[in-house]
């Protein structure tokens, strides 16, 4: 536990000390939020049924949250340390290898909370209000950050398997299809049949739906439940694979 705390604290400090790595991950979601609202809010005015009286910004907040938290930061940090030799230093210390991965994920949680808070506040500043109230806003931030932690396992897995900075960096691009094959611009039922089928097969859709329900509809147990289920399953899978990869690293 002590080593997990030490390595987690180190990773958090690294995030704070390297703002140039964090700021771009916030710029993109804020940029998308502003551009999407600017382009589409005329097409979908407040009277649009699926907006339930809110502006289009409310519909877009979850998409920007996904952009804010789904980063390759941890994977990149890890592969950089593999590259510069610090990772070996940690491997020869008498600690559990899992604490190296979990320490990184602790930093992702902190970064995710900070990033999603900024995006949510920006959404509110653009005119959205959170139907589920302050508690709902806190849940949105925690669910988004948790999704970031779950997704970070992917970057860590790529880092451990490839040991290559460029590959780990480009692995982030795989998130784009996952994000865009969702009801990101309109609800499921307004997608074309093919897109709707693909979106319904995509687990990220249910994370977006869950977050969106808290913004637009209030507390919807089914949607929030599905969102939590996807995050837990994705986290268990990707973190589990990362822990297995580090346990087998050079063994």
């Amino acid at each position, binding site marked *: 536990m002590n080593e997990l705390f030490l390595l987690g604290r*180190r990773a958090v400090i*690294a995030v704070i*000390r390297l703002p140039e790595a964090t700021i771009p991950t916030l710029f993109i979601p804020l940029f998308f939020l502003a551009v999407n609202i600017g382009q589409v809010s005329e097409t979908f005015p407040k009277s649009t049924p699926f907006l339930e009286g809110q502006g289009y910004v409310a519909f877009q907040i979850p998409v920007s949250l996904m952009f804010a938290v789904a980063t390759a930061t941890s994977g990149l940090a890890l592969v950089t340390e593999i590259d*510069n*030799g610090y990772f070996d*230093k940690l491997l*020869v*210390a008498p600690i559990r290898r899992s604490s190296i991965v979990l320490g990184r994920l602790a930093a992702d949680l902190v970064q995710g909370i900070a990033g999603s808070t900024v995006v949510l506040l920006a959404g509110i500043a653009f005119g959205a209000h959170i139907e589920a109230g302050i508690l709902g806003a806190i849940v949105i931030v925690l669910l988004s950050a948790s999704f970031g932690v779950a997704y970070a396992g992917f970057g860590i897995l790529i880092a451990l398997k490839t040991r290559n900075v460029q590959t780990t960096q480009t692995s982030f691009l795989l998130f784009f299809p996952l994000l865009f094959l969702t009801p990101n611009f309109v609800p499921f039922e307004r997608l074309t049949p093919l897109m709707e089928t693909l979106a319904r097969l995509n687990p990220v859709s249910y994370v977006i739906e869950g977050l969106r329900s808290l913004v637009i509809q209030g507390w919807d147990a089914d949607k929030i439940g599905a969102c939590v289920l996807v995050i837990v399953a994705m986290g268990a899978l990707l973190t589990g694979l990362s822990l297995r990869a580090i346990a087998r690293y050079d063994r």
Partner: protein
Amino acid sequence: MTNAGFAAETDLAIEARGLWRTFKGGVEAVRGIDLAVRRGEVFGFLGPNGAGKTTTVRMLCTLLPPTKGSATVAGVDVVSEADQVRRRIGVALQEIGLDPLQTGRELLELQCGLYGIRGADGRGRTAELLALVGLTEAAERRTKTYSGGMKRRLDLASSLVHSPEVLFLDEPTTGLDPASRITVWDEIRRINDAGATVFLTTQYLEEADKLCDRLAIIDAGQIVAEGTPEVLKAGLGADVVSIALDGADPDTTQRALDGLVGLERVVPEPGGLALYVSDGAGSIAEIVRRLHLNGLRVGAISVARPSLDDVFLQATGRRLEGATDQAAMEEAPA
């Protein structure tokens, strides 16, 4: 087993038997090496790039499992009791393992924490190590601002936080300027004087000669010579007369020297010949006379006692890579 034999075995800080490592694609980096390093000695592992030094160190440090064979470090098996081995060893690998965003003090305090040295004890040990490696003044600076020599010294300090029984140093002076190399050598001597066994890999002959009580020479994954530097050099039993050919034909030159009194053997090397003769200084006049009689014009002729490079040449048929680089480094201003 006799009592004497048993005593000798328990005296070993590192023991390897038939250690072998094959990488994916069939590359055999280490091919069945045996090692016996006694407690308290500085043991050198000398060889050119790609000889298998780092792979051996990584196996002994539990970073890489052997494909075949076995090894113990501080009496503990490196595969079945890897965690116990890690508590007893310090490691400074060739790639300097530092977190560039941490300060020197933070890095050492973290390292202390990972070895269970916490709170005031950790802070005290950190201060002690910073002073030991002369980095107290730079302790609050991030490591990315350190020079190569400072990074190496901090890396060395980080490998010492728990006072390891066995310290592995993988090419600790590669890339350092001469002044920093001497500082690192002093640290190694001090660490060894404090009781730690040091396993040092190097491609620098002078380093092996000056620091090591005993050494093994590794080439192409196999140990080709082992002993104290003095014994290895004495084993050649002759002076070395080096002749720079300066364009003269090696075969003609060699024929001209056939039958030279005291000549034990001639080893061709790039651009010259190495003559192993029983009395180097006494043979010079006769060598010059024979070359003159045969109309051979050569460059410099020099006499030296055998060096570790000659030992390497004798064992492998070629000079150690990097020997020239080192000579250049030694001539460069500090």
